């Protein structure tokens, strides 16, 4: 693909690729709404030039589910009230995925720490913590049953 060289990863995702699932709240690296996974690590896509991402794997909310099914994090967020307006949700989902990939059994404090760069003005975070914990159990269960 081609895009203007000055564009951020956020702009290329949203404007050139039509992946509008990734949001923006400041475009200055302050709110965390634009987080995506770059080679498995959360980055603020508004602070990364798309040019720098050649050869890297970028995961956005659009790539979370598999085979038309929601990721356990998505299911848990939907069921447990972790998404209210839903604007910060895509970034928190991918950030939580990075956490669980790296540490399958995080404590509440580790969850707090992991998403502390993602501001949410609606929920007060508690239902988000609970949803991450529910997804953690679900993923562990799936692993144990060999699914």
């Amino acid at each position, binding site marked *: 693909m081609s895009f203007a060289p000055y564009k951020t990863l956020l702009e290329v995702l949203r404007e050139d690729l039509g992946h509008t*699932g990734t949001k923006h709240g400041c475009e200055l690296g302050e709110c965390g709404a634009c987080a995506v996974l770059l080679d498995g690590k959360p980055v603020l896509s508004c602070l990364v030039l798309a040019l720098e991402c050649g050869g890297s794997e970028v995961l956005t909310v659009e790539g979370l*589910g598999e085979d038309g099914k929601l990721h356990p994090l998505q299911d848990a967020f939907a069921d447990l009230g972790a998404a*209210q*307006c839903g604007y910060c949700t895509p970034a928190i989902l991918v950030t939580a995925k990075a956490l669980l990939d790296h540490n399958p059994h995080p404590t509440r404090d580790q969850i707090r*720490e992991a998403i502390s760069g993602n501001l949410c*003005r609606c*929920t007060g*975070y508690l239902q988000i913590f609970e949803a991450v914990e529910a997804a953690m159990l679900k993923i562990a269960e799936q692993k144990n049953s060999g699914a």
Partner: protein
Amino acid sequence: MPNEKDSRTMPAGALKADGDGLRVIGVPRRRVDARAKVTGQTRFADDIFLPRMAHCKLLRSPHPHARIRKIDTKRAAAHPGVYLVLTGKDVPIHYGILPVSQDEQALCVDRVRHVGDPVAAVIAREELTAFEALDLIEVDYEILATISDPEEALATPEPRIHEYGEQGNIHKFVALEFGNVEEGFAEADEIFEDTFFFQGNTHLPIEQHAAVATKDPDGKLTIWSSTQTPHYVHRALAKVLEMPGAHIRVIATPNGGGFGGKSDPFHHEIVVAKAALMLDRPVKICLTREEVFYCHRGRHPVLMKFKTGVKKDGAITGMHLQTLIDGGAYGSYGVASTFYAGALQTTTYHIPRYRYQGCRTFTNKPPCGPKRGHGTPQPRFGQEVQLDKIAEKLKIDPADLRLRIVESPNALTANFFRLGTVNLAECIRRVVKVSGWKEKFHKLPESRGLGLACSAYLTGAGLPIYRNKMPHSGVQLKFDRSGGVSLFCGATEIGQGSDDVLAGIVAEVLGIDTFDIRLFTGDTDLGPVDLGSYSSRVTLMAGNAALQAAERGKAIIAGAVAEKLEVPKERLRFAGKRIFDSAAPEKGVTFQEAVCLAEARFGTIGTVGSYTPPKSPALYKGGGVGPSPTYSYSAAVVEVEVNQVTGWVTVPRIWIAHDIGRALNPTLARGQVEGSVYMGLGEALMEEQEFRRLPKRLSHALVHKYPSILEYKSPTSLDMPEVITELIEEPDPRGPFGAKEVGQGPLLPIMPAVANAVYDAIGVRIDEIPVTPEKIMKALAEKKAGREPRFGPTHFPDIHWPEALRVPPPWEGGDGNAVNDVPRREKLRREKEKVLAP
């Protein structure tokens, strides 16, 4: 049907609310729009990309107050890629959310009134081009003196920021007296006089405001916007664009957070609409975060003075409240905010005599407006902290004191607000119990403490923003042969779950699943009017309208099924996507078959429902702000730990009980409570919208101190305490299935409870919000020096108040009118004569 008569005497949804067997209502469940949100497919305004779409940027004033001598746009217009440059003369007509404050222009014509006031717009092929071209516009400003705060506004009548208002830079005076307050003070055993200050703060929705406008193929206008009030945007566009409203369609996209900040019609909406019409192509704008700070409409900074008389047992004999309110540069909702600041004091505790004097001034700062709790959190803070001081002086436990004086259910207050169910006492008892208040209050080790506070809030404003007798909310249902139901309503989803509320109510009545319902909401063309997502009105008002429409649909379907099954209509039950004989459940049809039967029997099936609030007994001028069909109540206990070396406040735990009537979806209700607690805690400890003057040599202009998310501190996941939420459910007959509001009320007690807890922990009073480490250290220094251990304002300025409207309270034989409002009495008399004339 709920609304054909006074809904206080005609219970609406509660007809069946106390029966068991509800399958949707009251059951924690996935909200209808959850899948869209967790897959990133919710289409917010900035996610809309249309073919040939151009981009708009606004040039904003760098000066807080200046006359515009000249704007030269020639170079910008000639810049490659620029399609159009607009200035104020292209959209000169004034508008504003309230009919009494039509003081805004989409682009300033001859005067800018705050840093960030827009003066020109560039529309270009690329956003970056539009941005570059802003620099090519030359504006010649004549700098004017700036007014930074209300006291300066009182002392500086000239230059006037606006040519309207009470006088000088005073925008609005309110003076109301319900009973003889001086007599009340004479009866009192103790009189308390306290001044408080509540700093302004902003909504900070994570989504920046955005809008896309397009000229439809038939020449009409469609605009998508992140607005909480599409109906009012619709009206403002019709006015400013001088177009028939019937040719304008406003679609409120789901808001990425609103909290009141997207409730005004905004400059950028009008500008992109105008540009789309002129260019005949779609035009988009997305504000930067800095611009969102300039749009503001957030919490008004309020200086307030409470004088309260009490008997030894805690009974209040009279209260006098004065407020001085910093309105910022425009009217916005400010007149309503000024009334609200004095409205709800009487709804929690019995106050037999009450006087309110409020004064809102203009200042050269972004306009203040409605933020969650609209106008009421500031005085609620003062009232609840003062009650804490009263309790201490009277040697009564603060919880017990409040329990003695709580207002009664269905009471008519001194200012003629009719209350609904009132479970404030139960809220207090519950938080006292679950927090271990009796074991902990005054008994925790040094530096740790507990504080308690209460509040009430509207379940929807009882009067519309513009005077009319039409319903406040309407719902249309279309029943499809597939068994699906389509719901059309103007209600706006701002994250609070309004779509789910409507789907839940309809699904419950019809015995179907919420996911069988397709919702078309927030669209002025598709759905009947709903006034908007403000004042916690949607659950009760749109909910009652949905209930009525669903009940009407159910009656039609039941008629057809009863004929087919040869069963009396009354015996039919709607549940599990079936309609069946309750006496013989196996005898029945599926919901889809039932719709087909009904359509064959009666023709196409569609129903409507609407809701109009009951008429308020508050007939005096200004009595239109504060009445509500019913009120929610909350009580909170906050635990704090204060570091006396740094002044840092840690909040490990908050217990909150909320009188909700009924939780329609408990998952969402809890989320609203926790979200309110979170936002209240931010206001209590850190959030403030502050301004500073540049040095004299650099123009001495007044600029925003923190127009960025990084510097405007808000709580992160690391700051959020454990929250123990108790929902008190006594269905209120005025709400659908008994529901009252939950989105705003639980925010209100948090700020005073934090301040009260700090006092319990370290013995200093912080009579100012936010309670920052700096203020705590100053108060501790005072304490150490043996002076009054307090930080807060020490005076309230002398204001030449107008004569108060005197309204005798109900117990003094008042009829809701002011006895000294001669012009209004005359007007009402003439109107009455006109009605009675043959």
